[in-house]
């Protein structure tokens, strides 16, 4: 690449594939929610309808629906969440959208209806359905993060301050506290649920914990997640991703920004390295080809986009996210990621003003055939 560099281009921006930043609105027809209310904390896909749901945090929390397939291409603000400043988990199955959100008084379960759309080049109607509170989940404390089970029937989460692990029935809101992770506040505010339904998190000095499907017993494991020597006491997982084909779990850490893989069956972990000099891996997602893409960089950084290739065992810094197609933006800090039905990837920006970033990975060229057809 050196020969392609020049004084005005060091190829510091998205070096592979294509990033497109979508405004959080119907472009040209509506305005995004106010700045300060749009930091995207969680995302979930409803595979049946292709709709991506997003929950924000800020002065107010919004539920957003992103539609990019067919003749759509919009983000619809489904509304603000009453009494909430953060959406912490989404369960989107069928026609049902259920989610956990936190506010100053605690955390609640809410429900609304799905968002679908078509014909959005010509004329439209995108209803804003009522968002209804189902039940109080936590009194007086918010949620750090929570994950929905594959069938959407429950969420497992961790409270933001006390580190209590809880399980919530997403139909009734009935919640049970399963245990406390760490009295000193040393626990990860990011959880994942693996292919078998097992929940994973970290606590203490870089320690792993897990919760088996249907079990109420938190299992704290002796293994330490990979980190620099002597940094165990500071290290937690800040991002997770699960390979839906192999079942391999990938983690990224804070504060130092290392990456590792975890085999959920053997519980064997492998350190994969540090993608680039920025700290804090904020989100990860596994592409259709098995490569793992993520973002690294704190809220004070100019973050980078990176990729881990499990075949090559390589980490690649893909540069600073940039979008030039229609929306001309730099992206510096993100909090969540998910892979879409066609292999596109969604990255939720987490700054004062935000976009939904869609990444279209490069399709590799075929290798030359040994014999050619004449």
């Amino acid at each position, binding site marked *: 690449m050196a020969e392609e560099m020049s004084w005005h281009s060091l190829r510091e921006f998205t070096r592979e594939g294509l990033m497109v930043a979508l405004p959080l*609105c*119907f*472009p*040209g*027809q*509506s*305005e*995004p*929610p106010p700045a300060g209310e749009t930091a995207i904390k969680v995302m979930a896909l409803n595979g049946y309808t292709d709709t991506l749901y997003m929950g924000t945090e800020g002065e107010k929390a919004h539920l957003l629906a992103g539609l990019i397939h067919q003749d759509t291409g*919009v983000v*619809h*603000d489904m509304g603000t969440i009453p009494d909430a400043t953060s959406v912490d988990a989404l369960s989107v199955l069928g026609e049902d959208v259920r989610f956990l959100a936190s506010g100053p008084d605690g955390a609640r379960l809410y429900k609304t209806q799905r968002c679908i759309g078509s014909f959005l*080049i*010509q*004329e*439209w*109607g*995108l*209803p*804003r359905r009522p968002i209804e509170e189902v039940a109080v989940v936590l009194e007086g404390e918010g949620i750090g993060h929570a994950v929905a089970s594959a069938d959407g029937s429950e969420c497992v989460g961790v409270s933001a301050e006390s580190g209590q692990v809880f399980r919530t029935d997403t139909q009734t809101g009935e919640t049970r506290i399963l245990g406390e992770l760490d009295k000193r506040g040393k626990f990860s505010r990011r959880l994942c649920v693996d292919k078998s339904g097992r929940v994973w998190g970290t606590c203490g000095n870089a320690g792993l914990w897990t919760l088996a499907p249907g079990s109420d017993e938190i299992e704290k494991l002796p293994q330490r997640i990979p980190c620099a020597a002597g940094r165990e006491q500071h290290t937690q997982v800040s991002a997770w991703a699960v390979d839906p084909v192999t079942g391999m779990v990938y983690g990224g850490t804070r504060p130092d920004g290392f990456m590792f893989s975890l085999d959920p069956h053997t519980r064997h972990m492998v350190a994969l390295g540090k993608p680039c000099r920025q700290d804090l891996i904020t989100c990860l997602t596994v592409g259709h080809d098995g490569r793992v893409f993520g973002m690294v960089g704190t809220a004070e950084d100019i973050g980078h986009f990176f990729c881990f290739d499990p075949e090559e065992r390589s980490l690649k810094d893909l540069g600073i996210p940039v979008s030039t197609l229609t929306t001309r933006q730099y992206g510096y800090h993100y909090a969540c990621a998910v892979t879409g039905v066609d292999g596109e990837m969604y990255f939720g920006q987490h700054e004062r003003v935000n976009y939904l970033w869609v990444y279209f990975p490069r399709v590799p060229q075929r290798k030359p055939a040994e014999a050619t057809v004449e």
Partner: protein
Amino acid sequence: MKTAKFYPFEHDPKPDSCWSLSTGPDGRIYASSCCEGVPGGGVFVVRYNDETDSLDTLVNVAEAVGEPLKSGRATQCKIHYSFCASPATGIMYAATHLSAPGYGQLAYSPWADWKDEDQSFPHSTLLAWDTNKDEVAWSSVFIPREGCRCLALDEERGLLYAISYMRDHFWIYDIDKRSIRSLGRLGSINSQGIFTDKQGRVFTSNGDGQLVRYSPHTGKLEEIPVYVPYADGLTNWHAVIYDVVASPDGDCVYGVPWTANPHLFRYWPEDGPYGRMENLGPVHQDRDPSQPISFYLDHCGGLVFGTDGMLYYGTSRWPEGVESAFDTSIETEGIVVQYNPETGEKRDFAKLVGNPGGQGHYVARAGRDRFGNLFFGQVTRPIPAGLSRVVMDEEGEDLHNPVRTWG
């Protein structure tokens, strides 16, 4: 404030929309009784009978052009903004449009069914209604495989100008030769209006609200650096022309766009090389900008001048907070606004209603008859559609002139 009288269309299946209403060359009001949502639905041309105070059905277009509604193909279901009066010949031209599924079909996509031999729309049809003889003078295949969104007549040159849906092409039809040619694509969103100036130049807009001008003198179709005004917070995308009416002296036109928060505009086509556009401000209430509003709710149309020199147009009103999607439970109001072109003052002039349980807020087009009364064509789906008449208490006859020559 006056209350308009509603005249429902009474055809089978029940018409759901009146997309076109125009003053004929005879000073009477013609309207299209459309059935865009019913499989196998067709369009009828109706005329207001000022002697019986009722509507007369003039022609079932499908029958007139020999295209059965039960063919299974997308039907000749509506005449969109495509009535053109020819005062010199007494002909009222009408071109048909698509959208109703074929008979027995659940749904219709003109994109998916393109060139499908069993289901696709065969062509738009041009119908010439002789208002002197009250009969179809002739009909012709118009735009192949596409519908006609809007139509304008250049009577001096014997040309009709049209925009097709879905390919959004600009077409010129030679009436004597009965031949049509395309000058190519404009964009992806049809302008809903096309109009002419005193020089015979033709104006419409592309999907970005930019005016597109055709000159019969040069044969050139060109995008000119003039844009349809739009509201703060929106963009020019989709700010296509919706309805345009000429001022009584013909020096300028007044119009509204087909976009959210429509603004009334005034355009002087002969002022300078590209004309001069004026933004006369919003026609509707404020709305929640965080939601994309349905154009079926936030809709303004039916621009018509009264003999008093005032501009009249149909507007919609809705309860605050229901903007995102239209449904029939929303208590809308249809109000005809009177706008004073001299002062810019406006006032609510007449209330529009629809059938019981239906809304009267969606006005497609309007016209003025030979007694100076105003008529507004309404889309009231799913309730049967019709038109409304506002009595203006004028004296005299032949008060319909000058006649509008575009749809």
